[in-house]
C-alpha cells in the first residue's frame, strides 16, 4: 500500500478546488486534484473494485450446486454482474493514476484490501440468500450514498451498479422467501446462515467514526458522504423488518428499536475481529487469495499471447 502523499498542493488551485466542492460541483477525470484527494479516492475505489472481484468467490461456489435451472442461471448472472462491477470500478480507479494490471497484481499478491464480508465462508445454499439480500443490501447503503460523491466517474458508475444491485436484492428475496416458507430444514438452514453472517454485516459499515480532522475532510470533499453509523442504521431500518416479517430471529438478542425513534441499539461487536479481517486475516482470506493467485499465474501465458497477437 502506498503511503500518503507528502507533496505540497498549489494553494491557489487547492482553494479553488475546495470552493468548487463546497458549491456542490463534481470533478471529472483528468482535472487537477489535491494529492490527498487523489490518494483517498483512489484507495476507496480500488478497495471497492477488489471487493467486487473477491465477492464473486463465496457465491460462485454455489453456481454448480444451484438446485433448479432457474436458480442456476440467475446465480450465474448475479455473480457475473459483480465481476462486471469490478471491471467498471477498476476503470474508474485507473483514471486516478494506477493501471488495472498493477491493482490486480497487488490484489492477488495479498497486499490489497477488500471488504470484510468476503472473507467469510458461504457454507450452505441458504448463505446465497443471505448474501444476496443482506450483504448486497448493506453494500447498497454505502453505494447509494456515494452516488452523490464528488468524483464524477465514480458517481456515474455507482448509478449503474445500484441499478443492477436492485435486481440482485429482488432475486435474493425470492430465494429468501422460498426457504423461509419452505420445509423446517430449509428454515433452519436459513436461520443458521443469518446467524453466521450477522456480525460480518454489522462490521461491514466500519467502526463508528471518530471525530477527526481526517473524517471531516473526507466529508467536506464528499469522498465520504454519510457516516458509518448513519449507514448502519439505514441498513437496520430497511432489513430488520424483513427478518421479523418472516418470523425469523435477529441473531443479536441485544438489538432493539429505541422507543419513539427511528434508531436501533445493538450489541457492540468485537471490532478486533474486523481489524484482523481487514489485514486479510479472515477465515477464508488466505484460501481465496491463493485461489485468485493460482488462476492469475495460470493465465499469464494467455495474457502474453493476446498481447503479442494484437501487436503483430
Amino acid at each position, binding site marked *: 500500500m502506498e503511503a500518503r502523499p507528502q507533496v505540497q498542493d498549489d494553494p491557489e488551485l487547492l482553494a479553488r478546488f475546495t470552493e468548487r466542492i463546497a458549491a456542490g460541483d463534481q470533478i*471529472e477525470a*483528468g*482535472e487537477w486534484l489535491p494529492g490527498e484527494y487523489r490518494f483517498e479516492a483512489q484507495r476507496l475505489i480500488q478497495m471497492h473494485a477488489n471487493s467486487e472481484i473477491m465477492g464473486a468467490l463465496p457465491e460462485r461456489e454455489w453456481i454448480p450446486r444451484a438446485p433448479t435451472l432457474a436458480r442456476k442461471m440467475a446465480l450465474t*448472472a448475479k455473480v*457475473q454482474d459483480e465481476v*462486471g462491477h469490478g*471491471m*467498471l470500478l477498476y*476503470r474508474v480507479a*485507473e483514471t486516478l493514476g494506477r*493501471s*488495472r494490471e498493477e491493482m490486480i497484481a497487488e490484489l492477488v499478491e495479498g497486499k490489497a484490501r477488500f471488504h470484510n464480508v468476503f472473507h467469510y465462508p458461504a457454507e450452505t445454499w441458504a448463505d446465497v440468500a443471505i448474501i444476496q439480500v443482506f450483504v448486497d443490501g448493506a453494500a447498497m447503503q454505502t453505494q447509494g450514498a456515494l452516488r452523490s460523491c464528488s468524483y464524477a466517474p465514480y458517481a456515474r*458508475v455507482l448509478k*449503474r451498479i445500484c441499478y*443492477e444491485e436492485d435486481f440482485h436484492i429482488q432475486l435474493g428475496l425470492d430465494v429468501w422467501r422460498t426457504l423461509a416458507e419452505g420445509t423446517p430444514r430449509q428454515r433452519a438452514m436459513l436461520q443458521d446462515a443469518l446467524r453466521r453472517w450477522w456480525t460480518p454485516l454489522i462490521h461491514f459499515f466500519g467502526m463508528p467514526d471518530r471525530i477527526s480532522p481526517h473524517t471531516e475532510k473526507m466529508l467536506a470533499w464528499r469522498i465520504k458522504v454519510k457516516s458509518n453509523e448513519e449507514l448502519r442504521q439505514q441498513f437496520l431500518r430497511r432489513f430488520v423488518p424483513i427478518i421479523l416479517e418472516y418470523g425469523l430471529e435477529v441473531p443479536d438478542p441485544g438489538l432493539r428499536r429505541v422507543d419513539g425513534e427511528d434508531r436501533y441499539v445493538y450489541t457492540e461487536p468485537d471490532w478486533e475481529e474486523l481489524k484482523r479481517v481487514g489485514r486479510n486475516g479472515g477465515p477464508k482470506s488466505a484460501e481465496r487469495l491463493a485461489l485468485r493467485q493460482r488462476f492469475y499465474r495460470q493465465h499469464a501465458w494467455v495474457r502474453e499471447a*493476446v*498481447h503479442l*497477437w*494484437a501487436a503483430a
Partner: protein
Amino acid sequence: MGRGVSAEEPPKGAEPPSGGAVPGGDAPGAPGRGESWERRLDTPPDVWAVFLQARKRDPHIHVGDVHAPDAEMALIVAKENYTRRDPCVNLWVVRAGEIHSTTEDAAEMFAPATDKSYRFGGSYRKQQQIYHSGWRLSHRDEDQ
C-alpha cells in the same frame, strides 16, 4: 443588436447583454490566459471506449470502456459487458486514447454568454428552460 420580436419578456434583472464582449478582460477563458482548451484523453493503450446505439434512430452514446487487446475483441466483449440489460442494435469501439477532448476549463465557452434567443424562436424563456432544466435535449427521443 436587439433581441428581436418576442411575445415573452425575460424575468426582471436577468437580461443578458445583447452582443458584445464579456466584461472583464481577466475572466477565465478570456483569450491570452494561456491555458489549454483541448487535450487527448490520458488513457492506457488497451482501453476502448464503447458507444451503444439503442434503437435504429438513436445516436451512439458512450456507455463506458473495456480493456481489450484489439478492436474485434473489444466489440465482442462490449456486447456482454454493456448490452446485457440495455437494448442495442449497434456498437462502436474506439481506442480511448484517440479521443480528443475540450478541457473542463473550457466548459463555460459552451454556455451562451449573450442572448441567443433568436435560435429559440425568439423565446428567451425557452432558451433558459433548455439550458437550466436539462430538458429538451435535441438528441433524446423522450424530449421530442
